[in-house]
């Protein structure tokens, strides 16, 4: 027993030593710009989290390897595993915060909600490329949030517009099969608004985390036979939904996923049966032939420095999205440097850079991204920059575009954004900044 006790004491001492170690953290070198990287490579969402994380980290590596950093300043980064859990995500953020990060991309709407309260005090830019709070487009209230490329309200609006082209929606039924989390619930407000305008009936079908059990949901789909199903799933939920749709023989052609529900890991488990399934693409799809992909191969994978376990992952939908997310972060840093000088910039300076991003088609091409990104211009009242997307369809082997560009209608969205932002500022007692002055 005595021996045992000594062992406990040793274990306890180790734990205490560890906690103290956290206190005196090793801060990043002062001649580098630090970017905290919140990822999830384990858990139910790993199949989708891994390619995104690989793309994100690979792009940061590429900037260091190919260009020697951003205008000569190297990028430092550190990964932290969140497991898509909000509390672990907040812990990761706190852990990496002390290293003076400039911008963080949490890849979870739940974590985004939690961090939205924290970033203004810590002066770290919260980049949410293609997710996050839809009302954070309004930069006068959400000064530090940047839902670049598009929000869920954008996505839902574009999907409604797309199905409307096939015939008027009056009297039709649209079902939303969604992940029962802030992420999945985000589009409901917009869809309710659109349902009133267009006269369709909206059926809400929540799926609980992690989404492997959906028999009941799809039985309801079978009973009610909606004309369209919008899928707002993530991780293992997506492939399960597609398999269940097949089981109740719901036509895949009438299924539309959001951009987080239309990547390779979602359709490959169902193999050929997923044929005809559609998704809205966030500007890009699975494309691997652009100069940036060739650079990835040349500078990273040929030298064995790539993050992904196989170079085949380069160019997949989520890998590209990770890469673009990192690219936008880097461009915000560049923009900040153009005003404040080519040095290690602070979070506040990067915030200015993100709010004054202007990437035209030529510039995006120049970065090696071809036409994977649409021209993007942010401003104080529009932290999204661009609100466009295309539909892509899975043909059993690959994704291909099946529509031309759609654009979210801000005549409809603007009042929603403003009322929601106003409610938030009232709840949090925030005074919106006057745009155009600061």
């Amino acid at each position, binding site marked *: 027993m005595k021996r045992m006790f000594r062992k406990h004491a040793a274990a306890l001492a180790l734990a205490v030593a560890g906690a103290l170690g956290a206190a005196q953290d090793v801060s990043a070198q002062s001649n580098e710009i630090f970017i905290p990287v919140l990822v999830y490579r384990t858990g139910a969402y790993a199949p989708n989290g891994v390619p995104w994380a690989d793309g994100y980290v690979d792009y940061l590596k590429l900037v260091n390897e190919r260009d020697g950093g951003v205008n000569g300043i190297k990028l430092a980064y550190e990964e932290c595993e969140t497991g898509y859990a909000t509390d672990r995500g907040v812990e990761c953020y706190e852990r990496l915060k002390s290293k003076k990060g400039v911008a963080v991309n949490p890849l979870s709407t*739940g974590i985004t909600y939690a961090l939205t309260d924290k970033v203004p005090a810590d002066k770290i830019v919260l980049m949410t490329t293609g997710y996050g709070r839809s009302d954070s487009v309004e930069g006068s209230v959400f000064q530090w949030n940047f839902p670049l490329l598009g929000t869920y309200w954008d996505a839902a609006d574009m999907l409604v517009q797309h199905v409307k082209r096939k015939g008027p929606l009056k009297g039709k039924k649209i079902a939303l099969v969604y992940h029962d989390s802030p992420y999945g619930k985000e589009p409901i407000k917009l869809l309710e608004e659109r349902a009133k305008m267009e006269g369709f009936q909206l059926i809400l079908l929540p799926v609980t985390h992690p989404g492997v059990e959906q028999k009941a949901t799809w039985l309801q789909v079978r009973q009610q036979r909606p004309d369209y199903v919008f899928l707002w799933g993530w991780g293992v939920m997506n492939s399960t939904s597609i398999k269940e749709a097949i089981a109740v023989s719901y036509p895949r052609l009438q299924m539309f996923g959001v951009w987080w529900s239309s990547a390779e890991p979602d359709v490959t488990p169902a193999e050929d049966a997923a044929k005809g399934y559609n998704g809205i693409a966030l500007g890009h799809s699975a494309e691997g032939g652009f100069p940036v992909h060739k650079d990835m191969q040349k500078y990273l994978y040929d030298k064995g420095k790539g993050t992904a376990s196989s170079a085949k992952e380069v160019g997949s939908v989520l890998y590209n999205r990770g890469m673009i997310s990192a690219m936008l972060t880097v461009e915000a840093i560049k923009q900040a440097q153009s005003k404040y000088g080519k040095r290690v910039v602070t979070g506040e300076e990067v915030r200015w850079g993100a709010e004054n991003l202007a990437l035209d088609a030529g510039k995006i091409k120049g970065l090696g991204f071809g036409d994977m990104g649409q021209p993007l211009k942010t401003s104080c009242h529009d932290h999204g920059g661009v609100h466009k997307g295309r539909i892509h369809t899975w043909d059993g082997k690959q994704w291909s575009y099946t529509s031309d560009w759609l654009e979210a209608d801000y005549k409809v969205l603007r009042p929603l954004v403003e009322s929601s932002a106003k409610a938030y500022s009232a709840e949090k007692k925030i005074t919106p900044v006057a745009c155009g002055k600061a």
Partner: protein
Amino acid sequence: MIYRETGQFKTTYASDQQLFPILQDRWFVIGFLAFAFAAVPFMATDYLFLAILIPFLILSLAAIGLNILEGYCGQVSLGTGAFMAVGAYSAYNLAVRVPDLNLLVIFLLAGAIAMVFGILFGIPSLRIKGFYLAVATLAAQFFVDWLFARVKWFTNDSSSGSVSAPPLELFGHAIVTPAQQYVFVLAIVCVFALAARNLTRGAIGRSWMATRDMDVAAEVIGIRPMMAKLSAFAVSSFIVGVAGALWAFVRLGSWEPLAFDVNRSFQLLFMVIIGGLGSILGSFLGAAFIVVLPLVLNQLPTWLGIPLSTAMISHIEFMVFGALIVFFLIVEPRGLARLWAIGKEKLRLWPFPH
């Protein structure tokens, strides 16, 4: 040698019955609290406050609540997450709908609402026990998950179902910095821990423990099982409700029902079992084990300079953590608090054990 009671004579009942009868204990606790209140706020980093100390303290409070129900009164509950959620959402609704309410009043009212809810779901305990009761409290968990996810009134019609707490303010002072939040939480936890410790030493606590040990015998000696059980549910869910409100307001800031799902209930149950059933100290030790250890395990490879992939670190964290739970339960099924007590016993005889 140092830890010895020789010469400490108790000459009054009061001195014999005090909270910490041994002088060294008393000084240790006073010193420890003085350190926690006066020194830690100036020493610790933001990370230590926000990621370790505050979650540890709040979950300790929740574990104390659960321990009263489970450790002292013997009523197994899997609905702790639900009681926390009731506290959190009550506090949110009070803060949003009733303007200018004092933060402490909000927390106490939130606790009271959770208490009513707890009593309601405690009623089945009069008829069923053990595993069956656990399943009945599980119903509370699922009911609450459903309630706060589906009934929009509770979330003030938030589009995503996620709600945010208003800024913390107490008597006109904003509680903003991590150190201020820490002191605020620490003060509340200390008050409740002291109250809980005293409750469990008094008549109510004895009636709980009698009910736990053998309810028929307790009834025979004149303890009313209904009062004992329902009061345990009431006190427990009051404390858990306050902990839920703190967790939501101080720790999370904005949250969704998922923050209080069944996993939270299990987490608290593990804390109480590993820490020690029927021990206030055990609640703290268990919370430290469950909250701090995974974080230490997750960061250990980085501190030691071992390059491992993020995924591998997570996998190792799960494996080592699981193994340690099993290890501690085998070594001392009565929990970490019992190990502490054994240590103290040994220390009293040291260096001359018989």
